[in-house]
Each structure stands twice: as structure tokens, then as C-alpha cells.
């Protein structure tokens, strides 16, 4: 049985952790896998956020676009939490990171339940994304708002005076 998916998943998790650390946040990985991939901590005040990373290799599509699929557990998507979950869809293409789609659980849940983005299969919701230079689309919705949108974790300058 192929272990490639283990390496793919871990690479995405590490890539997201690297981005968050470079933005000045501390990161931790839970010892026990309960659905959270990364805990993100703002050291100055201990503010905690939760991130689940989904990683996939994109496949070439028409007119230079690429296609990729992610899935999240429906129950996780439906369940509110404080602090709430953030999803990062890490998209790999041709040996490099193409894009990261960063979206809060609540926003993704709204897209699914109100705007019929995503398809439910066996207790999971599948999101099929088409990514071009100009847009990121899932069904007929643009998700470009969430493309490489790391603003939830604004860069912290640890060299600045307190």
C-alpha cells in the first residue's frame, strides 16, 4: 500500500507551519490526532488559533488551469468551537507550492450549506477546486478571497520595541 499520502500530508503541514513561524507565530502539533493539525500561538498574549491542513497535488486542466480536490468531515464542518477551526488547503503543482487557500470553518460551512459549494459523500464534504492565474473556483463560486489570505495571522515584528 502506498505511503505517498503520508508524505504529501506531512509536507503540507510543515509548509503551513513554516509560513506561520515566518509571520512571527509559535506553532505546535498535537501529540494525539483529534482533528487539529496545528495549534498556532501568538506568544505575546497567548492567543490560540487552530488550523487543519489539507494537502493535495493538483492535476493539469484545460487552458492552463489546475484541478484539485479536498475533503473535510461534515461533522467537523458543522461543529462550532472556541477558538474555531481554520482550514488551509495546500496545493502542490510541479514540485512547488502553487497556492494556499485559507478559510475559516464558519465561512466554509456557509459556502457548503447556503451556496451548495461542495458535495457530501459518506459523511465528508468534497470540494473540487479549479485554479487559474485569475481565479480559484469551486462549482460556480469564486474563492479568490481566500487565496493566500494569511491576514488572520498578520506579520509580527519581534524586533520592534514593545
Amino acid at each position: 500500500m502506498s505511503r505517498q499520502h503520508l508524505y504529501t500530508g506531512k509536507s503540507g503541514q510543515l509548509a503551513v507551519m513554516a509560513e506561520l513561524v515566518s509571520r512571527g507565530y509559535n506553532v505546535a502539533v498535537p501529540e494525539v490526532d483529534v482533528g487539529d493539525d496545528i495549534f498556532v500561538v501568538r506568544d505575546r498574549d497567548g492567543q490560540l488559533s487552530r488550523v487543519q491542513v489539507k494537502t493535495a497535488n493538483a492535476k493539469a486542466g484545460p487552458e492552463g488551469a489546475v484541478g484539485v480536490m479536498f475533503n473535510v468531515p461534515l461533522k467537523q464542518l458543522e461543529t462550532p468551537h472556541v477558538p474555531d477551526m481554520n482550514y488551509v488547503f495546500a496545493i502542490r503543482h510541479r514540485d512547488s507550492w502553487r497556492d494556499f487557500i485559507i478559510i475559516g470553518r464558519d465561512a466554509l460551512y456557509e459556502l457548503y450549506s447556503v451556496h451548495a459549494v461542495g458535495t457530501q459523500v459518506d459523511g465528508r464534504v468534497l470540494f473540487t477546486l479549479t485554479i487559474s492565474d485569475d481565479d480559484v473556483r469551486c462549482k460556480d463560486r469564486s474563492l479568490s478571497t481566500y487565496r493566500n489570505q494569511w491576514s488572520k495571522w498578520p506579520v509580527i515584528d519581534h524586533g520592534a520595541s514593545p
Partner: protein
Amino acid sequence: MSSIVINIGRQSDGCTYQLHPRSRADIKRRFPAAHLVPTLFVGSDPQADFETFHGTMWKQIAMMLTGLTWEQLEESGGVSMYDPVASATTKVA
């Protein structure tokens, strides 16, 4: 209008409440001036019985989340609490 649904997320130190996105959209459409609260967390003793402790507050929680009176909520079809993990829905009386 169908019942307003509030999703519940149980945690070790309390419970998070959030309007179902469709309910949020319905309320915004029907009551444009309503002041909706995105999330509400109510802390509780881990040993407390969930429904005994939280159940008594569900009407207040529904009013805070929606910005509506209980009469308005009843006229809108009432309120149900949905626990996704337990796959359980409870009508708020």
C-alpha cells in the same frame, strides 16, 4: 419559515453556540435590522449535566444570537438546537 437552527459544539469547559448559516441568512432576510451575534460560548463545570445546565439557557442563547425576541422566534417557526457530533436535534420549548 422553518425552525431556526443553532449548532452546538461541546467542549470540555463549556459549549459554543452558532446559528446555522441558512438560519443566519433567513433571519438577515426577514429581519434586516436584527443584530446577530456570530458566536456565543457559555462556560460550565465539566461535571455538570449538559442539558440540565445548558438547556435552561437555550431561550436566552437563541435571543442573544439572533437579536430577536422570543415571540419573534416563535413566529419564525421556533428554535432547534443541533449537536452535529451526537447527530441530535432538540426543539427549544
